[in-house]
């Protein structure tokens, strides 16, 4: 009996002290963590919409979406965070698109676990650059091994075809959702 009480008291005390301490720490850390996350998102938005000066979150849609503006508060387009499957895990991206959703301004890969040195090339400048000003109607297409001939095509990376295709897939998927929502008048 005495042991049982001792066991209960010890474990409860340790639990209460730990929990209390962590709660205090968490109240200090949570705002900072939220600020870090916000700064990350903000940085990504201005990377994919280089000419934007301000942005606001679009509230009426079911997914995360940001509308960006120039100096005089004219809407420039959207920044859309979207994710999908890469070669061996989730790829999270930010897609910048013009206000009419026809042209991509830029893309940025936020999180990925692609093969270092091969798949990770999709995060690098030469690949991402292909998306700047790319026509996204009816959808983005890819070609393999030859330079793109149409204005909605990009060339996949040698040795990272699946990762390249995954990026194209995520962009198309995200834009398709956005267009569907716009057609229903949700984002306006």
């Amino acid at each position, binding site marked *: 009996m005495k042991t049982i009480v001792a066991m209960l008291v010890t474990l409860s005390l*340790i639990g209460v002290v730990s929990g209390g301490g962590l709660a205090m720490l968490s109240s200090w850390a949570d705002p900072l963590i939220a600020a870090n996350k916000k700064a990350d998102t903000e940085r990504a938005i201005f990377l994919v919409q280089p000419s934007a000066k301000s942005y606001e979150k679009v509230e009426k849609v079911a997914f995360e979406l940001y509308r960006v503006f120039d100096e005089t508060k004219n809407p420039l387009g959207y920044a859309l965070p979207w994710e999908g499957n890469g070669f061996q895990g989730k790829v999270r991206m930010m897609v910048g698109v013009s206000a009419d959703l026809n042209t991509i301004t830029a893309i940025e890969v936020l999180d990925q676990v692609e093969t270092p*040195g091969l798949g990770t090339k999709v995060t690098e400048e030469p690949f991402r650059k292909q998306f700047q000003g790319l026509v996204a109607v009816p959808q983005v297409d890819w070609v393999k091994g030859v330079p793109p001939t149409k204005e909605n095509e990009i060339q996949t990376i040698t040795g990272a075809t699946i990762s390249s295709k995954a990026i194209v897939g995520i962009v198309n998927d995200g834009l398709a959702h956005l267009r569907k929502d716009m057609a229903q008048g949700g984002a306006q």
Partner: protein
Amino acid sequence: MKKQVSLSKEYAKGLWDQNPVFKQVLGMCPTLAVTVSAMNGIAMALATTFVLVFSSFIISLIRKLIPSQVRIASYIVIIATFVTIVDLVMRAQFPDLSKALGPYIPLIVVNCVILGRQEAFAAKNNPLRSVLDALGMGTGFMLALASLGGIREIIGSRTLLGMQVLPDAFEPWLVMILPAGAFLTLGLMMGFLNSLVERRKRRDEAAVLAQHMRTPAAAMLEGQEG
């Protein structure tokens, strides 16, 4: 009471004699997973050392109050508390590092180096010795992870701590920063270090044997055996 070893030995044993990675072969998950660069290895080892030192200290302080039936549960709660502290502080202050180490920070909770030291050492020794032991083990862990991460980073991406050390002409061995590279490097390093130890041991044995050969008693013993 068994004879106490000196305090400095309490610290130094973790560096080599009982190095958690090379000798005890504990904590393999973070060792293999995060050592793609020297910086990641050092950060991981620092986080682990922090948790190890504070858990050892607290557990050693209250070791006589914890009923032995619930000691493991108590250790885990205390360890988890310190791991959560590290995780929160890193996410708040060092978001990039936190992203690089990802899920391996929360996984320090189940790092067997930490639980192993509590059960094997902190639960039986006073706080001062426990902290020294934890610091030693942490330093040993750091040596292992930093060297492993350094080797993999140099060969796998030509850099060390982010600075380029090999010329562009050197084609980086991608396999070194993939999981297979971790196993290869760790295996070869362990083999190499153990072969050094083995060689020294054999030399010492030979020296002792040679000395004994010269004494008459040993000669007699030799004669009897022959």
